[in-house]
């Protein structure tokens, strides 16, 4: 298991805890109960404390996300340019609401605060790739392309 190796490479210092959680999430998409326990053992930090750190940071997921994670930017620029409309249109198209994953584990919809591409607002990111200057038409085209590929 690659993430075990990564863990092993890390110094057992709490300052590496967040990095460890990030690398687990990079590999598996989320932090499962099992991995939480592994990490807790490795750093000798009680599981509740690890859970406390996980819940503090928006990045960490405790449930398995879909194949494609759609992050709708709701930073100031995107909000002004209609981020909530974008979010609604995605919900209507895919049948999932903010924070949800569809029944086929294909799409997860989440809201994030600013992807740093504000000059192209409104933007979304799908698995990290950013799409800018969205309108309803271009958005639906992108979503349908992903649906088809899946």
């Amino acid at each position: 298991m690659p993430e075990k190796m990564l863990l092993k490479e890390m110094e057992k210092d709490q300052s590496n805890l967040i990095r460890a959680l990030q690398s687990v999430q990079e590999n598996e998409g989320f932090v499962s109960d099992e991995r939480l326990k592994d990490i807790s053992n490795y750093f000798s930090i009680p599981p509740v404390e690890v859970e406390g750190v996980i819940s503090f940071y928006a990045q960490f997921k405790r449930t398995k996300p879909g194949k494609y994670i759609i992050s709708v930017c709701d930073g100031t620029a995107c909000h002004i340019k209609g981020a909530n409309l974008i979010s609604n249109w995605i919900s209507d198209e895919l049948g999932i609401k903010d924070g949800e994953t569809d029944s086929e584990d294909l799409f997860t919809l989440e809201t994030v605060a600013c992807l740093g591409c504000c000059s192209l607002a409104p933007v979304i990111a799908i698995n990290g790739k950013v799409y800018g200057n969205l309108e309803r038409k271009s958005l639906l085209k992108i979503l349908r392309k992903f649906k088809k590929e899946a």
Partner: protein
Amino acid sequence: MIKRIKIGTGSCGVAAGADEVFDFFSENIKDIELVEVGCIGHCYAEPIIEVETDKGSIFYEKVEPKKEFLEKILNLENSSRLQVGGNRTKKEFLKVTELAGKIDPVSYDEYKSNSGYNGLAKALLMKPEEVVEQVKISGLRGRGGGGFPTGLKWSFLAAQKDEEKVLICNADEGDPGAFMDRSMMESVPHQVMEGMLIAAHATGASSIFIYVRAEYPLAIKNLKIAIEDIIKYKINHINGRKIFIKIKEGAGAFVCGEETAMINSLEGKRGTPRFRPPFPTDKGYKGHPTLINNVETFANIPIILREGGTKYAKLGTKNSKGTKLFALAGDLKYSGLVEVPMGITIGEIVYEIGGAVKGEVKAVQIGGPSGGCIPAEHFDTPVDYDSLTSLGAIMGSGGLIVIGNNRCMVETARYFLDFTARESCGKCTFCRIGTTRMLETLERITAGDGCEEDITFLQDLGDKIKKGSLCGLGQTAPNPVISTIRYYKDEYLRHVNEKQCNALECNALVDVFIDKENCIECGLCIKNCPIDAISDDFIVDNSKCTRCNSCIEVCPKNTISRIPGGGISE
């Protein structure tokens, strides 16, 4: 003759399709060097290509991965050349961003051959206290929002006797609507690193951490490559000491931009702020004296060292020296990253650089969730720390969002409170519960259920939250509300008394209407309505309609619109 071709593949470029352009060009061009560069700041025109010729550079905008475009560029044709809008070239003053988008970000050699690391070389010939003195003379103030004098902060750390002193670069860029720091790290990572290494010499620091928000993968990648070169060429060997350098990725918490919260986060804990004193420069990361500066602050340092503090201080106003980067976005024509001299007016930025139309702009929002709105009537205000504060806004880190006449200010205030209420770490009761109460009140108002007392309540509670919070998050959270009430009380009053939203933005106060006179009955609206709220004879059932705007977007005749109305009953 074409010397080489540069493609801007910063995050903004990529979002506009620069990757596809790069792939297409590299497949089809064989004998000309093709380089990826960062962002020149003209994000409205992405993807951008710069053709370096023996007679200077030619820029092309909105480039597409197509044969015609390729030929156009190779023949240096006139069409599709970048049209720099308004008076931008005259008004901008490129100092910190001079190299951004012009050099290969990750090429140590290219940075070096453009005076890179000259500032560090000069600093190393000076005593640490002389370097601190130069920064003091320059008048540089922190660009992360607070505006604390950088030289003074450095002198605090320099005075500490601890063996281990820590430098942290605050690259968390939490303001949702700002991207100056991202752009700098992506485009000129070496410049940011040079600033930090100069700081390490000046303060005697032994470790450097760069705390980058996780949403910035390209910034992290470019910084990593720069650091590898720094280690390879031993640039981190300073006066016989080897400086430890490490990148730490944030994990998505706005409050971690605050200094003491960031230190907790670096230690692997929940990122809640600590009591001050002790200040970080006395006792910070793992108990060691720690100094935190913002990315843009560090990026200014090499320039100060290169040209000397006195010359640097010539630009700007009495209390605000140098230039400031702004991330321009919102309702304007030319959005992007701009660098302007301190003292320029907001109006010059918005109209002359941003190309916004006079009369169509209501306000700018500056300083993000900690800042406020400045109405168009006050656009003659100069950009400097003190003038902006006197208007109830702040300089902030550089997010500048232009708000058009068609936006609701109450909704804007609600948006920011929704953000701060969610991001409050929960440690202080006033911040945790206070922001939630403010948010609920604002939601009531935008839903048409507010009353006049709500407005006084917001002001009163806002005051208490400011007083009762430990860190800057709570202390500034009410600002967007207070400032919109200050300048746009009439909008609040219309929401609570007449149940109307001037901007027709608040869903609960509008209906959707099809103008049957001009309707051609094409049926697109009916087909695209996700909840079948439009009847066969083209009448919107407003009790069903979710105000999703799908019909408005697809109507080829623009006959569908939002009108003042009864709104959604929730």
